[in-house]
């Protein structure tokens, strides 16, 4: 079907206006970050000096920067390895078992923390983590375990951040996985049952391959959310401390702007951040690539 002039105008306006807005205010600044990472912009004077790769060299000599990258991966892997399997198992348990009639209640309740601002979650968990009267140490006390310095110890603080993020994201991925699992037509299982496949084998051979795309989407999605959620959590809960032990890339970037007024350096961090997220997305797409099964 050939499009007439008014049709073309329609398409042009419908795509042009939003895209111009989006490109000008979002993508262009992101690309411009590349340029500013090579300047010494300090926040006030626009008399920029081009400093080449100096900011990147400074980053290479900055131990906190490496720590913040490491912490980003810790957070990503912590959530991918703890939260994803837990959510997946819970999703299987809730959709496969017909006796649990209140499954929707759990789904709605577990998702709730995702609607609450990270700012509030972090303030709530500050009391949970309090070493002398926090709930966590009280519970540990019942089992005779010594109180833990959740936010005060450089060794434990990243674990505390990961616990909070897992606690929050569990319900989010549960919703996705439940939708995926319940979308598989039941007759596929029926024939497997006739062939004598166990529940476990059915999960391995049917459920996981058929929900592969959703697992992939969730992993991809978390590449992006990890930066934002990590920032929100760290900024309020620990402010990167103690001794920068919980600094992650996004919070370190923001710290360089707001505290040290190092706009150039923070742009360089931003560029590294962009490289990391894009590489990880491509890597996930590549590793997770599989024949998709049509249902």
């Amino acid at each position, binding site marked *: 079907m050939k499009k007439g002039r008014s049709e073309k105008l329609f398409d042009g306006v419908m795509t042009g*206006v939003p895209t111009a807005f989006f490109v000008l205010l979002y993508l262009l600044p992101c690309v411009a970050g590349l340029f500013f990472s090579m300047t010494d912009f300090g926040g006030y004077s626009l008399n920029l000096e081009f400093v080449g790769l100096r900011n990147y060299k400074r980053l290479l000599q900055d131990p906190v920067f490496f720590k913040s990258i490491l912490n980003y991966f810790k957070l990503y892997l912590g959530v991918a390895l703890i939260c994803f399997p837990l959510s997946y198992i819970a999703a299987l348990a809730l959709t496969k078992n017909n006796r649990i009639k209140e499954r929707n209640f759990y789904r709605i309740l577990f998702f709730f923390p995702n609607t609450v601002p990270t700012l509030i979650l972090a303030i709530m968990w500050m009391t949970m983590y309090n070493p002398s009267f926090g709930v966590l140490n009280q519970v540990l006390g019942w089992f005779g375990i010594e109180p833990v310095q959740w936010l005060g110890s450089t060794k434990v603080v990243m674990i505390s951040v990961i616990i909070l993020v897992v606690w929050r994201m569990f319900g989010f991925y549960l919703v996705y996985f439940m939708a995926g699992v319940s979308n598989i037509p039941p007759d596929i299982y029926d024939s497997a049952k006739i062939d004598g496949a166990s529940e476990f084998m059915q999960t391995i051979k049917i459920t996981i391959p058929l929900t592969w795309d959703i697992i992939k989407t969730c992993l991809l999605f978390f590449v992006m959310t990890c930066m934002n959620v990590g920032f929100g959590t760290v900024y309020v809960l620990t402010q990167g401390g103690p001794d920068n032990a919980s600094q992650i890339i996004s919070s370190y970037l923001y710290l360089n702007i707001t505290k040290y007024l190092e706009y150039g350096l923070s742009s360089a961090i931003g560029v590294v951040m962009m490289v990391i997220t894009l590489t990880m997305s491509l890597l996930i797409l590549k590793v997770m690539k599989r024949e998709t099964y049509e249902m």
Partner: protein
Amino acid sequence: MKKISFGTMVIRFFMVLWSLIIIVPFAQLFLTSIKNNEEFYAGLWTLPTRPIQNAIENFSSAWRDANMGVGIFNAVIICGLSLILTLTLSSMVSYAIARRHLRHENKLSNLYLIGLLVPAMVGLTPMFIMARFIGLFNTRTILVLLYTATQIPFSVFLMTAFFRSIPHELEEASYIDGASPWRTFTSIILPLARPAIVTAGIFAFLDFWSEYMYGLMFLTDKNKVTVAMSILQFKTGNGVRMNWGVTSAACVIFIAPILLLYCLFQKKIVGGLTVGSVKG
């Protein structure tokens, strides 16, 4: 049969356990908001002796100290305008990508996908310079523009999937009746897409309402700050010697609209998230 019901019990046990783990921090927040500071330090689960009086004191001083009236007013204006702009622009481009058989359909949808993957923080410095250059620094307008721009990718992601699921026959019938594409879009497509627009709108609202990163950078005027920034001041301003009762009260005021929204629209929020991502 006995084996299965044992399994059910195990599942129930863990589900109830996790429910408790989810509820406890929230319960504690609400409880703290009706305690005074001594009662708070006496132990988390000690019940307040005069809850109503404490509540009145905490909530009124939270409202006063954080200047929450101004904060909420600003947040409502900024969220409202950003919401209108986000939903208008996103629904336009999502419809075009999903339904108009564009020549560059794939390139265009990849462009928005890039937006979903590149963290907005990368562009923070250029955004800052741009804001000063066009004279929008320290205005609420720049926040509206930036909130919209950063929210568009996710809204497009949610809406495109939904537009694809609308049956083609409805559009065809509309064209046969001689309606222009504009008319088809506004009077056939948009009303049908209401569930997707509501879901995208709720997610956008949740993001806008709690946003403070841009706010702290772009606003210096105390009368323009949003409520999220006012809450943050409790945390950083008072340091270790926080008044937990007042802080918790402020948090409760802050999340009250979210709680209300979630109670009203839980099905739309939870269900709308997965509309397009699950093939079926």
